[in-house]
């Protein structure tokens, strides 16, 4: 299988764009190669390799837009997709407010970086096999069975339009999401890195196995209000939903976001600063979006005060601002406007594991199945703990306890933050194509509300 190449992607995008004169045309090419291993029940379930190209043809006629995706990169296939996008645009109602595609100047200057690691892109069968074995054995040392995924991928993106814009970039990344199971307990070890060698699978397997062993015989605990120390993975589960319900331009224009009409107003505690790092983050670092606009940093919340949201060209035109480089489109889902790419919960100054600062309360490793549609204006969410919930007294873990359900208005709960770790941890979100990646520190919240138990009766 061939490694994605900038030259090939640019050539393909140029060819796909063609020479249309009576409409605006954009061709975005995304080439991805992925090598992965799926683990489960303490064994390697399968190894896979996937190589794919995706060409997005976007046509704009009188402000009306049509999009087609294809992976048929023959001249005929590309022409068909282009004609389909044009036909869709011509059939849709004109939208005079659509600002159209960007020129090279309007698209801004992307950061000049090349976040590419050749060993990650090319791969080494033997080395990666050994790393998997290390992870499985590290978990087994704690009598725990590992599940999860390890993936190394490389991608190239090229954007060409008939207004003269032509951009190309590439990146690599490696990710692991490992869960170890032991008795009734489980533990998690996960990371997102720019290169394969930065991913320490033995350490992640060991961490997951150690937490699983510690939580293998959890005891009952009453729901109620507890001081909680949230590990970064738990915070990221919340961030993913915060992104989904409130950080995009569409939710603001429709009035459903907690940021709608709140710019400059206090919406939560002053220890909360959330931003999309744009090109500053090395999370999923393609430095321009799929319509070619350079990404920039977007400050959603600064010290508890509402800020801006992410925009693409179209939403920015409606809002009277400029695109932040967050055009989003999906070949599987309706996109619902621009989307985040690299959301960061700004770290604080607390070092170490922070159990001392917690004092007495619950140490939460992860949340599971969070849902933020309960009341999006308050960021009201529910979800459950998983992969280790520990009771802490006087700064010491005293026992593992059974999982609990929380139901909280997060903007209000974030007002009770009493500690922020000084180190960021990064994880790719489940809906990575739609909401990107996330990074967060440990967060200590006082009086967090757990509304139910997870036991059978």
């Amino acid at each position, binding site marked *: 299988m061939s490694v994605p190449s900038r030259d090939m992607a640019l050539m393909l995008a140029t060819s796909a764009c063609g020479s249309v004169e009576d409409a605006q045309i954009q061709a975005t090419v995304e080439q991805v190669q992925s090598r992965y291993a799926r683990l489960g029940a303490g064994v*390697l379930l399968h190894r896979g390799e996937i190589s794919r190209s995706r060409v997005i043809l976007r046509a704009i006629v009188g402000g009306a837009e049509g999009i087609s995706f*294809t992976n048929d990169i023959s001249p005929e296939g590309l022409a068909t997709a282009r004609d389909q996008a044009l036909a*869709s645009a011509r059939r849709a109602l004109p939208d005079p407010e659509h600002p159209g595609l960007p020129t090279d100047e309007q698209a801004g200057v992307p950061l000049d970086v090349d976040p590419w690691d050749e060993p990650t892109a090319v791969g080494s*069968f033997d080395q990666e096999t050994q790393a998997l074995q290390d992870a499985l054995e590290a978990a087994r040392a704690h009598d725990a069975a590992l*599940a999860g995924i390890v993936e190394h991928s490389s991608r190239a993106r090229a954007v060409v339009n008939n207004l003269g814009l032509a951009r190309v970039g590439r990146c690599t990344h490696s990710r692991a999401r490992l869960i170890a199971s032991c008795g009734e307990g489980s533990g998690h070890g996960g990371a997102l890195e720019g290169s394969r060698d930065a991913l320490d699978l033995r350490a992640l397997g060991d961490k997951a196995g150690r937490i699983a062993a510690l939580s293998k015989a959890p005891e009952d605990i009453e729901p109620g209000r507890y001081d909680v120390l949230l590990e970064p993975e738990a915070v990221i589960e919340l961030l993913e939903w915060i992104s989904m319900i409130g950080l995009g331009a569409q939710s603001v224009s429709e009035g459903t976001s907690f940021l709608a009409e709140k710019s400059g107003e206090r919406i939560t505690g002053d220890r909360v600063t959330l931003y999309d790092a744009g090109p500053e983050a090395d999370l999923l670092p393609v430095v321009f979006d799929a319509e070619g606009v350079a990404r920039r940093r977007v400050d959603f919340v600064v010290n508890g005060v509402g800020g801006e949201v992410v925009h693409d060209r179209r939403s920015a035109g409606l809002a009277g601002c400029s695109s932040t480089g967050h055009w989003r489109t999906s070949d599987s889902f309706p996109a619902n*406007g621009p989307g985040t790419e690299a959301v960061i919960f700004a770290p604080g100054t607390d070092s170490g594991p922070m159990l001392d600062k917690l004092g007495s309360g619950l140490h939460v490793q992860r949340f599971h199945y969070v849902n933020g549609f309960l009341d999006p204006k308050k960021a009201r969410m529910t979800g459950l703990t998983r992969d280790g919930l520990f009771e802490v007294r006087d700064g010491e873990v005293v026992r593992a306890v059974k999982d609990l359900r929380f139901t909280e208005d997060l903007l209000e709960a974030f007002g009770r933050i009493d500690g922020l770790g000084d180190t960021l941890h990064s994880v790719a979100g489940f809906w990575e194509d739609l909401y990107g990646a996330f990074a967060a520190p440990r967060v200590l919240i006082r009086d967090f509300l757990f509304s139910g138990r997870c036991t059978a009766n």
Partner: protein
Amino acid sequence: MSRQVLESARDRLRDRGVVLGEVRLVERRLEWIQVRNGKVETCTQTLSRGLGIRALHGGWGFAASDNLSDAVALADRAVELALSAAPMAYSEIDVGQHEPQTGHWASPVEQDPFDVPVDEKIGWLIEATEAMGSVDVAAANTMCLKRTTHLLSTEGSDITQEQVVSGVSIRATVVKDGLVQHRTWPKDGEGNLAGRGWEHVRTQDIVGMAPEVAEEARQLVLAPKVPAGLHDIILDGAQLSLQIHESCGHPVEGDRVLGEEMSLAGGSFLQPSQRGERYGSDLVHLYAESDSVGAAGSFGWDDEGSPSGRVDLVREGRFEGWLTGRESARRLGAPHAAAMRAETWAAMPIVRMVNVNLAPGTAGSLDDLVASTERGLLLSRNRAWSIDQLRLNFQFGCEAAYEIVDGEIRGLFRDPLYTGKTPSFWGSCDAICGPEAWQQWGWAFCGKGDPPQIMHVSHGCAPARFRGVRLL
């Protein structure tokens, strides 16, 4: 791609001595149209075609590419991946021997949704949004998917199939005094997805329903919050279908039971020791049926070439069996349920839900069930969903709750949020409407697996009543 190329890849798998090998050519066409407040928000058409090859040779290997020029090399790669996985794989992988399958299957389609002009679809959706009148967001969506598969296996299977699913929905959103309320029809997002063509979509009268949906959204921002406490509740079909999906469909997935899906969706409380144990009341009979005519989770064969059929999951309230594939069925000592599905050519088949249905009861129509309820709430259509990784503790939000007093609908409440534990909740089921109220409810976005896959499924059910359920 010529048949000869597929055969050459299959033959290479045989030459390499695999225990089982499959060559799967998949073409997937998808169309999404979204209209918001009279404007086309999204008009997207997707074509994705490629080859996925799965090989069992000590371990499992999977190689997939949309470069169809060298299928034999792709087959070799799948074998190499399988061999490299072998030292860390299960010490024994038993998929048994299966009768080779041949033939063709297609969804029952009267009008191919891709033959319907896009401007006709757009015009209809715009008409529906305009019919909603004054709301903050008037939205309408339609989704059509066609998936064409040709599968050859080293066992001699040679099958083709064409699955079509389609749906349409409308959604009214009203924002007032810090409250956001939605009302949808027939349910949110993809609507009520069916394994049929445009003729199904046309039966969904979105223009006719739009004024009522919008009016309910306007009423919801003025309605009181539903009172917290224990209530007798009736779930309408749309909500009950998601209840089935989350609290029965997922925990009966064999790979979850075996600990193979822990990293993402989680495990299951329905372990082998639970077989024959109480899951719900005697009225509760749940079964998987992958050949339900016109349902969104139907097919002729699953993606490892096993023929569709029916398997009991819960019978007379007692847990009976799981959704399985060839390997997981043998590992669990359970019937093989033909439930291995892959979203695209680029996805490895995994255990997936098919149509998981709740058999109808004897409580008549929904009106009959309401009339037989002294005091309670009728909860309608889903708004929020959450359940723990073993599928025990759930919490679902609905769009609306209608108050029932003395067998009649009296009032409207907003923000109903009910919670419970799976066995006790299904144990409290004391009435299920009859066949006249039973229908399929299709869903497009069931997420599972890692790398993540989404899948279309369906749940046949009739509204049902549950006693003493906690509302928050």
